[in-house]
């Protein structure tokens, strides 16, 4: 064999030759740049009330998407976990209710808050995974309601109906993180971190095993995987995300009360995740954006067409029904359908991928 074979590349090998920067789709680069320079041309209202909210609601919805999309467990308890995170920051950190708040510095309060949130999430998950599939929704909804009623009744720790106000982010590096621009970057940073971690985890052994557990728990058990363990671990991880989202939300609103994790917000998180799409971690952020836009402008729009502004819930509910009816994968699914339709060969009248 004196002759050297010319190197041949399959498409997979060619892809590996690209640098990581080239492998990221162009759309993501555009999005990243737009988001980074956003404060240059957007006002405080847009930064804080639209994008800030989108990011932290998206993080909470992302934790639901992680459980539902990769684990097959639709958990309605994520908003309560976020509530636990927010409450713990208020209780261990600084708030206006100084009879209860311990006033510990942020580098103690935040880790404790996250640890408590993870403990709560793990406990809820441990209860929820004892039953399968559709039961999970019922049980997590019941746990979420229990948390809501408990915080409303308990005045010793959770300060009952009124909750805590004056919960502000620490003034780190001399920046007031509650101001619109710093808060925008803070939430953007955590949204990107959470997004990337979930993306990474979905391809890591743990995420793949979790998807295996979702698709066929029996086979995974036969292969030697600990099915219950994987599911509970997924809840624990999702609790970190929800806890981060909850802390950011508490800082933004500067208060937390039982209503933050009431039945309405609990369902809203599910709506957000489903509207966006449960297949990919970008879905919850899309859903959160749509939801926040709707919530902010629906009243004006409704009044403009001559309806009463308080029919916002009707609009959300109908939109949710339409999405669930026609596109089970949410807006992401619509987008994929659209792309498949565009790539359709008009002569063969079939899609590019479909046989």
């Amino acid at each position: 064999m004196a002759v050297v074979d010319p190197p041949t590349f399959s498409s997979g090998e060619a892809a590996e030759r690209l640098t990581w920067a080239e492998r990221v789709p162009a759309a993501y680069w555009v999005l990243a740049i737009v988001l980074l320079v956003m404060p240059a041309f957007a006002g405080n209202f847009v930064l804080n009330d639209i994008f800030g909210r989108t990011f932290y609601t998206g993080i909470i919805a992302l934790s639901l998407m992680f459980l539902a999309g990769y684990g097959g467990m639709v958990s309605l308890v994520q908003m309560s976990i976020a509530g636990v995170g927010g409450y713990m920051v208020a209780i261990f950190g600084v708030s206006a209710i100084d009879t209860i708040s311990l006033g510990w510095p942020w580098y103690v309060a935040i880790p404790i808050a996250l640890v408590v949130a993870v403990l709560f999430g793990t406990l809820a998950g441990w209860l929820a995974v004892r039953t399968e599939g559709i039961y999970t929704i019922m049980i997590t909804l019941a746990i979420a309601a229990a948390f809501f009623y408990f915080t409303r009744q308990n005045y010793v720790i959770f300060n009952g109906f009124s909750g805590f106000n004056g919960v502000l982010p620490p003034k780190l590096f001399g920046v007031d993180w509650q101001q619109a621009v710093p808060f925008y970057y803070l939430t953007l940073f955590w949204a990107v971190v959470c997004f990337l971690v979930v993306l990474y985890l979905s391809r890591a052994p743990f995420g793949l095993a979790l998807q295996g557990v979702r698709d066929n728990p029996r086979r995974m058990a036969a292969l030697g995987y600990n099915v219950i363990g994987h599911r509970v671990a997924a809840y624990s991880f999702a609790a970190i995300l929800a806890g981060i989202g909850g802390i950011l939300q508490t800082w933004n609103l500067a208060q937390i009360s039982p209503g933050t994790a009431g039945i309405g917000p609990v369902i809203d998180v599910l709506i957000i995740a489903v509207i966006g799409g449960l297949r990919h971690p970008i879905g919850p952020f899309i859903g959160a954006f749509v939801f926040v836009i709707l919530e902010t402008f629906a009243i004006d729009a409704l009044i403009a067409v001559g309806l009463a502004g308080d029919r916002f819930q009707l609009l959300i509910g109908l939109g949710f029904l339409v999405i669930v009816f026609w596109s089970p994968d949410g807006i992401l699914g619509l987008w994929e359908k659209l792309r498949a339709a565009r790539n359709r060969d008009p002569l063969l009248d079939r899609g590019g991928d479909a046989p």
Partner: protein
Amino acid sequence: MSAFARRHPVWTVILLIAAAVLLWMIFALWPKWLVELIGRKKVFLNALFNGVTLGGLYFLVASGFTLIFGLMRNVNLAHGSLYLLGGYIGYEIADLTGYWLIAFPVTFLVVGAFGVLMQIVVFRRMEGQDLRQTLVTIGISIVMADLMLWIWGGDFYQVLTPSWLSGPMETILVTAQKRSGDLVYMKYPMVRIVIFLAAVAIGIGMWLLLNRTRIGMLIRAGVDDRDMLSATGARIQLVFAGVFAFGAGLAGLAGVVGGTFQALAPGEDVRFLLYSLIVVIVGGMGSIPGAAIGALLIGLADQFGSVYMPTYAVVLTFLIMVVVLAFRPQGLMGRA
């Protein structure tokens, strides 16, 4: 019963002792130390009666929920909305005709028809997709809640009790003894007792229907194995529609009852949905006797909780659910 006693002798003894203590507490005159310990007997008896009758109401709501779930694997999260819709319709009917009793059959039919509509238009299109069905029911409940808020507003409504049922009723239970030696008998609202008896009658009727008739046989077969039942040529879609109508109708009926007992307002739909969830989780999904036991347990916990530990009454019911889930995930009467 005897099989249970043979398998769990310790539990049987504990349950028997508990039942004996309860019976003694109901019928005996309370000695002084007991009154000092937990308060007057009247309070206890009232809590007991309220708990049992509330359990009857919960049973009416939850039995439809569990029946639909057991047969169609459809977690109908719009069940609470059906309850509230039934309540409002019952109120309108009773207000219009002036007859309280007419409200029941009309509401049952109207809400039942609505249930059939939901089953045919929505759920039949996505059979076997549990998650999507559940999401759709969430959407329906949001839309219905807002529509009902639109039509009936945020006010409280109460279905008026007819005169022949209003007022208290003498019971044979002694609550206290006066100094003069006369016995004081307990008085209790008649309407609650009548409604509770009706709930028991409906429960027994459902049990008979399920266990003694041909339709019940079909439904039980469907609960066990849907696919095999449809393969034998049974018209399973008809059974589905019928069960959905019946379950929805029961929820509507319960709405009228709830509107008489308590009040109707926005938010009651979520509350009753949650209670039926807990009742069904505690009792066991898809089991009618389970729903009865769960409803009784949750109703009693709710009422005794609000009398003896008012702050955490709601939490107590959730605690029961958590304990049941931890030790018996399939529910008390559920099959593993």
